[in-house]
């Protein structure tokens, strides 16, 4: 039996095993492969840097635990950058599986500051609201109309931070962390296009190619694509978080996939040649 025939009959579980080892190895013994922030990531950082200190920013975390490895690291870094500028943050979640996860991230990052960030003053979590694009449009008529109660059960209008928040005109920037639908595409269509609210996006890698046209057209000021985008963002901010730690494993897995694609083509070609003969 030739080596191509051996490969053709290879049990796929061997590939799973090799992938698991390639991912686990760099997590235990980091390779510290080089990483440098790309222009879309610089755009994300600069868009936040340019807003006035102490602004109130809208941050929509539209994801659930399935996207945690890609989106939570960039959420953490974005919160740190915003709070580093003493911004106040209004958080919404348009994915039903997300509010608990996002609330944990908010509590965790808020606790990093001396004395902590105060809920209702420095940030609010308005939580989840069913309705997708409807909610986005409704928020344009008044944020508290769309979210009468926050995630923690408070009357939204009674929170000090919400006293000066009416609608989209209250925010200089929208930071959207998106896992798909509803997410960046819908915010661009319903809010950026309609209310001309400047916007940046952090998204899962699988949806990044769909959002690059918005970056090229200037509708998005910056874009973080998946774990690589999150790792570049951490690098640009001088942090070393979960995304940076995961990138070595990511690179090794990509090498394996590339090798498998090449081998698959070689096997396919040899099979065709054998069939032709």
């Amino acid at each position: 039996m030739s080596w191509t025939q051996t490969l053709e009959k290879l049990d796929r579980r061997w590939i799973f095993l090799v992938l698991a080892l390639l991912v686990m190895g760099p997590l235990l013994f980091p390779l510290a492969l080089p990483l440098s922030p790309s222009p879309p990531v610089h755009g994300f950082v600069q868009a936040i840097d340019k807003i006035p200190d102490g602004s109130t920013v809208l941050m929509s975390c539209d994801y659930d635990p399935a996207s945690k490895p890609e989106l939570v690291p960039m959420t953490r870094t974005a919160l740190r950058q915003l709070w580093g500028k003493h911004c106040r943050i209004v958080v919404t979640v348009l994915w039903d599986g997300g509010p608990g996860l996002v609330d944990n991230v908010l509590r965790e990052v808020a606790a990093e500051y001396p004395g902590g960030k105060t809920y209702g003053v420095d940030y609010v979590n308005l939580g989840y609201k069913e309705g997708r694009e409807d909610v986005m449009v409704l928020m344009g008529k008044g944020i508290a109309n769309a979210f009468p109660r926050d995630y923690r059960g408070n009357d939204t209008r009674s929170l000090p931070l919400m006293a000066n928040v009416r609608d989209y005109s209250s925010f200089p920037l929208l930071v959207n962390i998106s896992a798909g639908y509803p997410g960046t595409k819908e915010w661009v269509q319903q809010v950026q296009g309609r209310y001309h609210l400047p916007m940046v996006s952090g998204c899962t890698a699988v949806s990044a190619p769909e959002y690059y046209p918005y970056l090229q057209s200037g509708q998005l000021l910056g874009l973080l694509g998946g774990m690589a985008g999150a790792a570049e963002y951490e690098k640009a901010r001088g942090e070393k978080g979960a995304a940076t730690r995961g990138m070595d494993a990511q690179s090794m897995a990509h090498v394996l996939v590339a090798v498998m694609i090449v081998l698959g083509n070689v096997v396919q070609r040899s099979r065709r040649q054998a069939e032709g003969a």
Partner: protein
Amino acid sequence: MSLHPTHDAGIWVGALLSLCIFSFLYKDNPFYKFAEHLFVGVSAGYFIALRFWTVIVPNLWEPLLKATAGQGVDAAHHGMFAAEQGDYRGWLILPGLLGLLLFTRFVGRLSWVSRWSLALIIGVYAGLKTTGFAQGDFVAQVQASLQPLWVRGHPWEGVNAIIFTVGLLTSLLFFYYSREHKGTLGAVSRVGILFLMVSFGAGYGYTVMSRVSLLIGRFQYLLDDWLGLR
């Protein structure tokens, strides 16, 4: 490097369930089935409870209760039906009724009534999507596609714009099916295929990255949070 397993029971449950799911990679087994069924059941319960407490109660039930007492968002206005923008009071009965009508789908002879609510939902979404697409996608993207092919002092921007324009036009012509793809149109559409293949390749690469990220996230959970390997 040494082991420091967590004492958090929640993380133990999460880790063991993750291993149950991973076991499917070897072959289908009762541990995988158990984790799968548990996930489906817990998810269903969670979503029902979440939607009840975050949608029905604050948006419908509580405002209706206040409205029956003649109160609403604006304390200066009294009256069950004294509605204004963002303060709909007793009129919320209407969306509440439309929501209830959706449940007539479970009653064979009355199931057609649910179409009224569905018609409203579809109409609203079609309107929102159409205007949103026109404003956010169509006009803005066409506008952004018109790029100067020569930028004084920035030759690479010009090269980039030329590649972009060639890719855009040839890809569009590939989808022009009113003439057979022969001759000039055939050659141009083959160039379009090249650009499309590059975009599919980029899309595939990003998809791989996304899926591998999930695996990395799970391994980080198992190695760091559960086993405490450091």
